[in-house]
């Protein structure tokens, strides 16, 4: 008898550990497997019971409800409700039925997240039993340039936000002549509203290890680093445990899987600097320095970590690679729209009724994600605004809900898909306050290397304060517009360059929050 309870830190933040402990205490014969989370975070703690009909779910379960559930037959599979139409006495109020059949799960196309919430993230055997290593085995039988071609053909673009074609980056590194090359994974997931990197690291870390090993073979690298933010201690622990297990099985180190590939993988922990999610700043930090941004060129693909050719990719980019190699580029490229191929792991957060992870092909609309999957707000009030793509992404009103999730469509609307995070706000939000916060955040987190970002953000806070106070509003709006232009055009990296995006979108779509007569004042100002 197996019962599955997530160890994911979001699930644990609402009591999953206590639920697992209680089940183990009253049913010592039961094997409690701690998995990642399925991503239905509003149902956490979600307990799943192995039955002949598949895994049946109950949630959200509180620790104090465990005794009652067990007494009512939880462990006999007698509480399913959904399978036998309640023949055994009716559905329990927490019974969800077979988890794979839930509409939220059925409507998704899980590729990168296929194993998250299903497998035991600490078990290498479980990983292999669920299709793990198929991609690496195929890649090792291929020439490096063929692996690069396969990834290029898949249309995979960087999932960290910038959307740069992964195959092209890899080709540059492969073509660079150097004895020493690196693969670096950016797991500095600092954007509010994004948590998919964390969930993959906690729920299926072997997928990242496999993806990085395939990358190493493809570009000729021998050493890899995963830079994980310090705010994610559980992810760090899960990844370190998986790396140890991978070494023991010969999946890392000398002669990976008996091949000629040598690849060593290390975990490095950040130290509370948002800017280290910017790739060159992350490289500085990995070198043991202040995390300040490097001017480009040179690009990291040619002069990256310690000046050597370096692949820098996000967790979800590298985590998508095993599936692309296992199932072929075409299967991945068949999903999506336009130049946005494959799936994206969207994340619903903030004031949302059903928050969590939705992995689906690009092209799904913003409205489908927020309304159909998310179910509107958790407060029950109307949705007023959503911020897409993190603190540097645009605020959009419900009138934009028909926008397809597609890099180009969002860019054309003055917004960005970014890392796929969507934060929902209800009608109590003050958008002038959120615009101010965007500048405040930039001022707080700027690395200080370039003036438009370091000084511009501080001036931005002051200017928005004056606009909010109704002080010389028209002149200050012109000033804010100029400042946004300067930051966009003159900043060294996306931190200063994109901070104007939430500010401008808030002004454009929610002008009424900046003062009664703003529409008149705005003419020519932005």
């Amino acid at each position: 008898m197996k019962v599955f309870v997530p160890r994911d830190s979001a699930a644990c933040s609402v009591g999953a550990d206590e639920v697992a402990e209680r089940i183990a205490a009253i049913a010592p014969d039961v094997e409690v497997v701690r998995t990642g989370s399925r991503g239905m975070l509003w149902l956490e703690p979600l307990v799943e019971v192995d039955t002949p009909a598949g895994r049946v779910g109950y949630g959200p379960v509180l620790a104090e409800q465990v005794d009652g559930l067990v007494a009512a037959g939880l462990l006999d599979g007698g509480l399913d409700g959904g399978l036998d139409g309640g023949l055994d006495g009716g559905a329990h109020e927490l019974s969800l039925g077979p988890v794979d059949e839930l509409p939220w799960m059925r409507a998704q196309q899980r590729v990168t997240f296929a194993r998250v919430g299903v497998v035991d993230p600490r078990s290498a055997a479980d990983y292999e039993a669920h299709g793990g290593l198929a991609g690496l085995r195929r890649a090792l039988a291929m020439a490096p340039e063929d692996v690069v071609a396969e990834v290029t053909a898949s249309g995979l673009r960087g999932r960290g936000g910038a959307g740069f074609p992964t195959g092209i980056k890899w080709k540059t590194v492969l073509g660079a002549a150097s004895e020493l090359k690196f693969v670096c994974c950016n797991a500095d997931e600092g954007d509010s509203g994004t948590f998919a990197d964390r969930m993959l690291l906690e729920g299926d870390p072997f997928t990242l290890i496999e993806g990085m090993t395939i990358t190493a073979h493809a570009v000729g690298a021998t050493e890899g680093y995963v830079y994980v933010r310090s705010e994610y201690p559980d992810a760090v622990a899960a990844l370190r445990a998986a790396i140890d297990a991978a070494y023991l099985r010969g999946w890392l180190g000398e002669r990976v899987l008996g091949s000629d590939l040598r690849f060593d993988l290390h975990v490095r922990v950040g130290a509370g600097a948002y800017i280290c999610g910017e790739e060159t700043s992350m490289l500085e930090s990995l070198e043991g320095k202040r995390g300040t941004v490097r001017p480009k060129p040179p690009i990291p693909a040619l002069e990256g970590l310690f000046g050597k050719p370096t692949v820098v990719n996000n967790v979800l980019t590298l985590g998508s690679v095993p599936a692309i190699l296992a199932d072929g580029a075409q299967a991945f490229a068949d999903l999506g729209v336009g130049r946005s191929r494959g799936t994206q792991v969207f994340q619903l957060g903030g004031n949302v009724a059903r928050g969590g992870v939705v992995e689906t092909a690009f092209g799904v609309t913003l409205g489908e994600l927020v309304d159909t999957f998310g179910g509107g707000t958790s407060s029950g009030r109307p949705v007023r605004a959503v911020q897409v793509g993190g603190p540097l992404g645009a605020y959009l009103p419900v009138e934009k809900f028909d926008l397809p999730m597609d890099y180009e469509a969002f860019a054309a609307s003055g917004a960005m898909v970014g890392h796929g995070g969507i934060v929902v706000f209800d009608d109590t939000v003050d958008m002038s306050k959120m615009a101010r916060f965007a500048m405040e955040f930039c001022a707080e987190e700027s690395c200080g290397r370039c003036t438009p970002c370091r000084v511009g953000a501080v001036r931005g806070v002051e200017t928005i304060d004056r606009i909010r106070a109704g002080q010389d509003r028209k002149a200050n709006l012109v000033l804010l517009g100029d400042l946004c232009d300067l930051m966009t055009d003159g900043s060294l990296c996306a931190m200063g360059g994109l901070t104007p995006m939430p500010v401008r979108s808030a002004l454009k779509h929610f002008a009424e929050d900046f003062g009664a007569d703003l529409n008149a004042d705005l003419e020519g100002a932005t």
Partner: protein
Amino acid sequence: MQSGTTDVFAAARIDAIVAAHRGDRGALLPILHQLQAEFGFVDPSVEPRLADLLNLSVAEVHGVVTFYKDFRREPPGRVTVRICRAEACQAVGAERLLEHAEASLGTKAGATTEDGAVTLDEVFCLGNCALGPTVAVGERLHGRVSPARFDALLGDLR
């Protein structure tokens, strides 16, 4: 390290920590993390010793220690409480929770209560964006923290 000048024991530990990372590339961050894990903070007095051992200038070490918010320059309270005030948590009342916490603890974010029990910090995102407002007590996450639940969590600590 407590007294401001490195005593013999602390100096030996610093040397041992640096030695343990001798083979690592760019080892300063891992070393600082381990120092903070053992001593609770990174005393400014260790900077010259680290610089010496790592063949860096004191300015380089000082620059790194002060760049990263994680590294504390003085001892924290017995428990550190971090309240997320990034956008997703703001959407469900994080600002109100932070105000409540400051009033309830009688200290501002970034400071420690007078009895040395609790250090209150703000943080931008703990990766629990669907179950906010989120609070970390030590390294333990708590989701959907209302002001009342915050007081209950703190009640367990004091």
